């Protein structure tokens, strides 16, 4: 069903072999964004390993290890992200996965707080990129391509 025809030209770099683990964290079963995320990443040429709904940090960690992933996209719609994400980076570092890019997005906290506060909080948890209530998935994908090309992570 997918064509490349209407995709964002910024994302049309199919020469990379990027591998991304995606999934929804906590007991959240909101699956719509997760499905769309998979489509969007695949359209941009990524190999996607989708853990779907109801995941704990260790499941992301194990999947990243098994698939030798370049990046992990954690999403949360019901706001459980804050509770589960606090030692996310530490778990990855402990497993020797310190170089894996960690992105988080969705409705990642419960209630309303200033955007910069939310971003600072999740950066302090060790996330490389934070997208709170950012409706366009394309932004994260463009950032990922840039991080993979210019960041420390080797493709």
């Amino acid at each position, binding site marked *: *069903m*997918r064509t490349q*025809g209407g995709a964002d030209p910024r994302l049309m770099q199919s020469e990379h072999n990027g591998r991304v683990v995606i999934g929804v964290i906590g007991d959240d079963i909101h*699956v*719509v964004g997760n499905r769309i995320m998979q489509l969007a990443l695949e359209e941009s040429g990524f190999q996607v390993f989708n853990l*779907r709904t109801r995941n704990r940090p260790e499941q992301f960690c194990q999947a990243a290890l098994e698939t030798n992933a370049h990046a992990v996209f954690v999403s949360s719609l019901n706001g459980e992200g804050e509770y589960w994400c606090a030692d996310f980076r530490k778990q990855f570092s402990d497993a020797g996965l310190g170089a894996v890019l960690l992105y988080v997005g969705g409705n990642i906290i419960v209630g309303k707080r200033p955007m910069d506060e939310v971003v600072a909080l999740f950066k302090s948890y060790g996330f490389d990129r934070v997208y709170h209530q950012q409706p366009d998935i394309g932004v994260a994908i463009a950032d990922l391509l840039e991080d993979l090309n210019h960041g420390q992570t080797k493709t």
Partner: protein
Amino acid sequence: MARPRLDARLPGIERTRQQVLSHPLARGISPDEVRDFLAKVPRNRFPRVAYGKRGTVPCIQPRGGFPTFEKQQRLTRQLSDAGADFIPLTVDSYTRHNQYDTATQLLRRSEEEGKDYLNGYPLVSHGHELSRELYTDIDKPISLRHGTPDARLLAEVAMASGIAEIEGGGICYCLPYSEGFPLDRCLLYWQYVDRVCAVNSTEEFPIHRESFGPLSATLVPPAIAVTIQIIEALLAAEQGVKSFAVSFGQTGSLIQDMATAKVLRELTGRYLAEFGFQDVRSYLVYHQWMGQFPHQIEKAAALIAGSGLVSSMISADKVVVKTVDEALGVPRAEINAEAVDTVRYMLRIFACAAPVTSPLIEQEAALIESESRSILGAIFDMSGDVFWESVFRAFQVGYLDVPFSPHADNANKLISMRDSNRSIRIAERGNVPISEQDARHEKQLLASSGSQADKNYRQLLGDINMMMV
């Protein structure tokens, strides 16, 4: 072959009920006492009575649930005063997943700290004796809204509390609400709920069941919703339920809404009669837009008013209303009351005595009906000892396939998208047994309207979030 049968009633229901009611949180519910109690509650608590009095205007029902008794009581009164015809009792998500201990703990914290730690009323934790008090001065039906795969205890407590409308079903409360709850167990547990509803009914004042047609509320083709609604009506009828509402969610296309209503109403009656359930009365419920809601208050209010009008044009028996808080979380009581008032106003100024129709609606209806008949026919012909087993198999082989269901047993092979009229089209039918001709017709409608059958993620996201523009 396992078609719906008059003699398919669950055997030994008394014994199973004893087991369910032996739970400490059942607090000694006695089936006989509940029957006596229900015989004494005001007659207007029964949906059949309320529907009988509605005239040409759909009944209005908001949604709402708060953790503590006091807040729920206040909400109940506010909604009733605002003119709601049905009063909701929305249950929190821990109770929906049978985590009664967690629900009870968070209820205590909500009471102590004066903050809401639950997204609904933990009915099982409160129990039936206290919950009866919620409704002492309410002369309208109370509707249990939840999303519970195993609702046996919850439904018992609800009926013991004087609630005469139970929403849900083995498919509609499993596929959209659960990732891993076994579908066959869910179907069986809902046969229990249906049976107990029937046991607690009298001929004149039946406990009413309602199915949840919006499902995942994300690009669900009308034929899939219609099929599942009819299946749940038949499953309930098998257990002796005599009053049942089928429902569907606003599709996003006016034509499709009107066509879906027509087909759903007609086919439900016809299939009930075909299998010998002529004595079941069916009703049609319309849910205002169940997808992503606009954040701007003005747009949200316009959407609520607009779909209030649609509910009148399709002659729905009831409309379930949204609030302008929808995009933000659990609505405040006064905002909920406002939504009831807005829709009441729309229904008054745009009263519509008969369903609106047109050749375009008739064409759409013919397609939905043909597809629904094909799917139902294929399911009736499946193997199985009883009908619910065939329904379970239908999911295993992908005859039934709900787009964007989180459930692990859903096939996810059917792909749907909107055509340029914003109607939901089946782009790939997967294993869903609609005819070649109808499948081609769906694709033609996609192509001829200038919409492409190959959409990228941005276009698909636009189809899903069509009310966000």
